[in-house]
């Protein structure tokens, strides 16, 4: 197992290099730069030489490779540089953003799993029954509604009409519910479909018939065998979706004024704040590869057979 993890670590380094270089290149090619954005943030147009001086101060006039090399050296010293926009250290901004995004991501993940797992189990057991059809219809609807429409509908219903939940989301349980729900609904509909397919596949396996013949209780068959075996693919599905949770919740974070990574990234991109964008991209790459590593390790732990492959 150790060798395997080392291989994955090398794999991670490679990806981080490729991703950060690609981002730097993309942002460098994109028109407009941080100095311009920073100076006319409030819509006041600025004279040329003030622009040149700020660009020079921020080191934006140095050639592309020098800027990238300088940034890379910084990363090796664990110093992600400071934001062009306000000079604050990027690490600090990301940490603040990461905290709230993780809270929101985990909460919506928990919400969707708590709903998707039992329901997909029921849908799989009552295959093609009335419950199965209703759940499939709901998952279609959930899957095709854009996040920003869903959140406005939810907010309108719960905050204005029923006055049950606050519009100003905070970390309390009540404040967290709506943003969590807006993220969880599309996620949960995707999970519902994928989990149901996995569970059906396991239920069709011969060991289920064998267990029934041996008179094993339904509870044991379901939870200790079917769910356990299906947990491998379920883990992979969840692993893949965490990636979309990290960056993809930009829309929800903007609407619910949730100071998460998504909004931070969006503002950074708008202001061409390269160090923050790079920091964000590195962070999401690390998280993405880290989660894949975790799912692979869990894969090995649950299904030893995979080790030989």
């Amino acid at each position, binding site marked *: 197992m150790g060798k395997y993890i080392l291989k994955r670590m090398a794999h991670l380094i490679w990806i981080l290099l490729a991703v950060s270089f690609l981002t730097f290149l993309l942002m460098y090619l*994109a028109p407009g730069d941080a100095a311009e954005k920073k100076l006319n943030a409030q819509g006041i147009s600025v004279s040329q030489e003030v622009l040149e001086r700020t660009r020079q101060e921020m080191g934006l006039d140095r050639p592309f490779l020098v800027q990238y090399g300088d940034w890379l050296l910084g990363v090796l010293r664990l110093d992600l540089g400071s934001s062009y926009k306000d000079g604050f250290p990027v690490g600090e901004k990301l940490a603040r953003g990461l905290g709230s995004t993780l809270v929101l991501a985990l909460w919506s993940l928990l919400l969707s799993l708590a709903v998707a797992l039992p329901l997909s189990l029921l849908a799989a057991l009552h295959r093609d029954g009335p419950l199965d059809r209703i759940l499939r219809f709901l998952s279609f609807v959930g899957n095709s509604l854009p996040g920003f429409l869903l959140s406005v509908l939810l907010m309108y219903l*719960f905050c*204005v009409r029923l006055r049950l939940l606050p519009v100003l989301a905070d970390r309390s349980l009540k404040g967290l519910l709506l943003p969590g729900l807006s993220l969880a609904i599309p996620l949960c509909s995707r999970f519902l479909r994928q989990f149901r397919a996995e569970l059906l596949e396991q239920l069709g396996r011969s060991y289920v018939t064998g267990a029934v013949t041996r008179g094993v209780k339904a509870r044991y068959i379901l939870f200790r065998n079917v769910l356990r075996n299906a947990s491998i693919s379920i883990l992979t599905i969840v692993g893949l979706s965490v990636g979309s949770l990290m960056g993809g919740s930009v829309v929800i974070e903007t609407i619910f004024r949730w100071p998460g990574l998504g909004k931070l990234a969006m503002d950074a991109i708008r202001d061409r704040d390269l160090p923050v964008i790079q920091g964000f991209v590195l962070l999401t790459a690390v998280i993405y590869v880290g989660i894949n590593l975790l799912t692979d390790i869990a894969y090995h732990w649950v299904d030893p057979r995979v080790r030989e492959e």
Partner: protein
Amino acid sequence: MKRIVALVLAVLLALGLLGCAKTEKPAETPAAEPQILKLAESFAYPSLDVHKEYYGWYTSIYGISETLFRVGDDLSIQPLLAEKAETSEDGLTWTVTLAPKAAFSNGKALTADMVARNLKRLAEVNPRFAYLADFNISAAGDQTLTIVTPQIYPTLLSDLTAPELGIMDLDGTADFDNAPVCTGPFVLKSFQPEGTVEVEKNTAYWNEAVKLDGAIFYYMQDDESKLLAMQSGEIDGYTSVTAAAKDIYAADPSRYVLTQIPATRLQFYVLNETRMDDVLRRAVNLAADPGAIAAYLGGTVSPAVGPFTSAAPYGKVTKPAPDPEAAKAALEGAGYTLNKDGFYERDGQPIQLNICYYAARSLDSIAILLQEQLKAVGIDSILTVQEDPDSTYIATGDFDIALYCMIADKAGDPYYCIDALFRQDSRWAIAGFRSDACEALINELQFETNVTRRAELANQIVQMVIDDNAFGFVGLFNKTTVTRKGVEGIAENCPFDFYGVDANTGIG
């Protein structure tokens, strides 16, 4: 199996109950409770250092920092930390006398030396105010400050009203980013960088009694969330209200008060003289109808004649009323004929104007409406959106009609906008507007100290630009503010964006 179904139902029930936990309705603030005003802001910055970037705008909105002079609702310059200011005969030396009672929130009196050090620090940390370093600023006694400018600098007074020139106690402030000590009616209670800011009454305020006990400023970028927060009673007001929200508030006058005044943010388009001849430009300006556009935008914009509000002395200019027939006549006079699909063309070449814009400040709506109005007159056009105008069509000049939006009146003086738009070395010179007479007038305006003369010069320059059909001024953004019934005094009548709560703000 029954047990599994029961388990599932229990989970769903728990979630449901969680959601519907009955909460008490947001309590009306009875008299005994502290008077806390809750507002939503569209920007929030990671620092409160008054001199850096645009942070001064927000310390001013939060009622923390104050400047020597302030701009009144009628754009006049009024005393604040400073009582009065006079200039010497040669107009090079300014003497400013401070208000005797002015003091910081930590009780220390305000001295001229502290003001001079503030201005020097501003010149160092903020590139946009680096020009202050060329002035000779010194304290002549505790209460008087002298500023000597290398050449005549007529707009110094209005510059002194800029929020970035807020005065801080440089010795008494330990952490400039998180806790600046200033002279304002409110002091900082809690500060989340780029998040919620809470302020409370400055009990040692030097000027007058402060009505409010405190205020909370939520950072909300999304218009819909602001509307819903207002309806759910969680905030008491906000500014830059969208057209959709405006109609909803207008429908319920018993709960909401809408205040709408033309502000200083200008929406305009530039006509590319290198690609369009005089007749075509005139036709376009005759076809464009700022009044109809303002109606479409649900009153969030007032139709503009020139770059400045007609209320200002330097805003007195005229332009021909929109007249589609006259536009058609002009085109046909110049040899354009209507082709089969109803568009004008000349010797086989149909006109097709490229309208460039970026999707902000309703420019996308104006682009669509402009395209319609040109089509009605028989001029075909296509729309091109850019994510960032400054480095695309403005830099390359690759446009026929370029839409842009900027603040035209920074602090009650016309020179900043005229210098930025009409000078021969300005970014917009790429559109081909050349007029030596106009350049001469601008140079004269630069040094003219007499206020009425400055207004006359500004009007002449703008009229020249309008007559040449080089620019098209569409609208001045209205500053639309919504407040809950009884709330007043959050600078809803002031055209500038950098004023908010002050001593007289009240919940009523």
